[in-house]
């Protein structure tokens, strides 16, 4: 697949942000390509101590997808917001699809204890996380955005701070509280289910 130019990606992002759903169909394969590239890297290749290299690869992938440096963008905040939303949408769709396929539709969650002790959000939880994030945004919109941009958009604390026009410290505080809030929400979800 030929990689579209940053300009083309930007155009699609703007279109999608403006409500054009068909732009998503063109953007999703780009994300999937990056996913495959990364997954391929992880498969049987990764050895302990290679974390740095992995982070670099992920960053590279994000840069390819959300290449803000090469884009003349009058409203960077808007751009980041849109691209993070987009990543969220596509990745959650991917996780939902996979969950559906793997479990014949009935999503089986990781047990509460496991979920709480996980050092990272497991695949199946992407969907649950998305739902919890919707609730978080209702309580505190900015914290919702922070999570969306940090986790889904892959932005650094500084970038998020720039976009939201707050201090980095505020972003850190938001991030910290959002995480426990989400964990608590996910825990409740599972209590309800079991």
């Amino acid at each position, binding site marked *: *697949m030929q990689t579209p130019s940053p300009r083309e990606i930007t155009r699609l992002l703007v279109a999608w942000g403006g409500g054009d759903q068909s732009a998503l169909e063109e953007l999703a394969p780009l*994300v999937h390509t*990056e*996913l*495959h*590239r*990364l*997954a*391929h*890297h*992880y*498969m*049987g290749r990764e050895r302990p101590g290679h974390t740095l290299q*992995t982070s670099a690869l*992920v960053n590279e*992938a*994000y840069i390819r*997808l959300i290449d803000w440096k090469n884009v003349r963008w009058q409203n960077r905040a808007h751009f980041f917001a849109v691209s993070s939303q987009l*990543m*969220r949408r596509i*990745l959650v769709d*991917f*996780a939902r*699809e*996979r969950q559906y*396929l*793997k479990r014949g539709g009935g999503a089986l969650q990781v047990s509460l204890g496991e979920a*709480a*002790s*996980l*050092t*990272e*959000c*497991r*695949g199946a939880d*992407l969907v649950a*996380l998305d739902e919890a994030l919707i609730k978080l945004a209702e*309580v*505190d919109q900015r914290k919702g955005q922070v*999570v969306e941009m*940090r*986790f*889904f*958009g*892959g932005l650094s604390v500084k970038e998020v701070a720039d976009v939201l026009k707050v201090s980095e410290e505020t972003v850190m*505080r938001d991030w*910290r*509280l959002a*995480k*426990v*809030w*989400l*964990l*608590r929400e996910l*825990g409740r979800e599972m209590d309800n289910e079991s």
Partner: protein
Amino acid sequence: MKAERWQHVEHLYHAALGRGGEERAAFLAEACAGDEALRRDVESLLEYEDQAENFIESPALEVAARMMSEDQSATMVAGQIIKHYRIVEPLGAGGMGEVYLAEDKRLARRVALKFLAAHFTQDKRHLHRFQQEARAVATLSHPNVCMIHEVIETGEGRHCIVMEYVEGLSFRERIAEGRMKVGEALDAAIQVASALAAAHAAGIVHRDIKLDNIMLRRDGYVKILDFGLAKLTEKFGPHDAEDETRVLELKTAPGMVMGTVAYMSPEQARGLPVDARTDVWSLGVVLYEMVAGQKPFAGATPTDVIIAIAEREPMPLATYAPEVPTRLERIVKKALAKEREERYQTAEDLLIDLKELRHDLEIGAAVERHQQRTPTDGSAATVSNRERVDSRLLLLGLKRKRTLIFIALGLLLITGFVFARYFRQSSKPIPPTEIKSLAVLPLSNLSGDSAQDYFVDGMTDTLIAGLARVSALRVISRASAMQYKGTQKSLGAIARELNVDAIVEGSVQRFGERVQVNLRLIHAMGEQHLLSETYNRDLRDILTLQNEVARTVTQAIRIKPTPQEQIRLTEARTINPAAYDYFLRGRFYLNRQTKADNETAIEMFERAVAADPTFAAAYAELAQACVWRFFLFTPDEKQWEEKAFVAVEKALSLDSDLPEAHLARGRLLWTPSNHFPHERVIKEYRRALGLNPSLDEARNQLALVYGHVGLLDEALQELEYAVATNPSNTLARFRVGEMLLFQGKYEQALTALRNVPRDVNPALVGHQIVWALFNLGRREEASATLDQFFRDYPEDNRGLFTSLQAVLAASAGQQRVAEDKIKSAVERGKGFGHFHHTAYHIACAYAHMNKPAEAMKWLEVAAEDGFPCYPLFEKDPNLNNLRQDARFVRFLAKVRQQWESYKTIL
């Protein structure tokens, strides 16, 4: 309100974070000042503080990518498209990579995609060699070799083998359920050996035959996987790429390669070059394991196994399987000879021994079955005393078994002798005279039950149809072969009558869902046996058997099918036995050609397609039956035509290579209401004949169309071939007379027509006899014959006879009578589409009356309605009065042009 409270929570949370233990508790108690809900809210968040440290710290893209890599099923997701393949679901993962079930969207078939793990394909030399091998395997079409369709690159440097999807168990899984019976293991080993023999003949050595690479399809069919894959794991020999010496890479991780090590030949284990005999060894190991349920060479570590392979003799099979025949023990021992020179030198040699053993075991079993069926005093036992009878039979068991063994041994000796004779003969060089034609005589019904006749005749048909696919061979059609059912004539006499070089004869016996077919191929000169085979098959595999017989026979007489025919001859299709049974019954009735039988046939074919809606051949036959129905029996019942159309299209959508369906389609198209689309129909018949050169009815129909468009020599040629493949195709014999008439060869035509057997519609033959007599100047005879036909068939609903009367009257100068007859002929022919011959006669009558305007009008009607027969118009003396007429000259020029264009499509 809500937002304020949330700000409060946030503030307290961060403030509490800076405090630990009791200090935190005290702080919260004070800050919340009795608001218990608030305190619980903050505390419940704090509880998660410990777990939050790494939570969602890795970006979602990484999480998703890991997820994808973690579970292999997500490497490819369902619905994902790779080229024109759509992933359906994961099938599993092996040492070489992951395998998925996918749909080939272009060909609407299921395939398996094997994604090779990247490290196997990184070395360009390996990859290149593998691709070469894969191409070789792809050209190897053998029913027991899992077909490789192609090797594709999927991006990121990964490679993927697109191959036949085999649904079933690997033999590893099968053995896990318990060791196999001797018969079952023999069947499987024969299939594997036959595949290896074909591969070796093509220069391909598998190198990695093991239980995991052999699949048992649900229908009992065996498929060998991963041909050529060994090329990816072998190390290059010490000398370099040019050297053919390749060594299997020996991985040292215990457990990991145990599976492979156990099947290694001694030369492989020593790192020596391998050849086809390595596959023979590995098959020996597989066969041993199937029967014994144990590996012949075992050990705690790969090294132990290798030592056992190199030095130890395996335990006798009988240790694990006491019922094993000594001969099987010997076969396995020979396959597992440590020295290559002492082993079977080819898979073919091993195959022969295995087949021979199975054959003899089957005869033994048949004798036993026969004995068991022989009525004893217990056969009339009622249900109430059945138990008692059973126990008595049990008591008799031992004694009877002994006699059985005697009989079986006797038979073995005899068949062994006979077999040896055949074998000696078949290994002789091919007889001096080539075999270019053969007839399959009706197979005999060994069951003695005439209710099974339909099945036995059906098997005969099936074998004929298989052989008929080979265009280099003239195969006598079933209709002609069937007349020899139960004949006392010698094979030589039959061969002379049918003018063939060889005869296939044999017998069929059905045991429930299994069928045993014995076949002999006999040279007509000297009645020498060229081949003798016994096939014992599941009914589901009849079509595969059909192909196998065709392949064996063509090989025996050294006829080479075209590459396309070869492909068709290796297709392995399984059938639904119930549907096939209906199908054979339908064929049986259809061939009897009466109205009642036709109705039964249609019903049977309908049941066949109901039992198996993908049964293309049954749809084709259903279409044929409906075509016959409305051409021969009920022309006014339009529904049959419609039904036929639907069935034809259904058949061709399922299998566009069905000759019978193309024949039926041609017949359906070539009608008055379709304005006789000659060119299209010619193509259909040619297609049918391309697929089955012995389909004499397609030749007859093709000749009919050729005759109408004036390609008379070509028509005669087709008819000659039709009569040669089916001397009893009387319609084709009649057609010969008709073509000679169109050519103006009246004398020859009359002789030919008079020789047509009476079973052809006498009116059809009659009108042409009248025309021949008339043109020979034998007016009185013509007139008398015509009168006779009028007495027999007064209706003359095409007006054909009436129009002949008009010609006779006109040529005799009886103008008024002629005009009356013309009027009457037009009246009779009204609404009857097939009118062009009548129109032509009317034109002739007007020409005799010297009425060129009317004559031209009817001549044009004839030509436009499907009878533009230029050579006839050009020469027919009946039109002589028109020859100076400018309109006729123009007309003739036009028809000639058309005729020339028809010639170009030849």
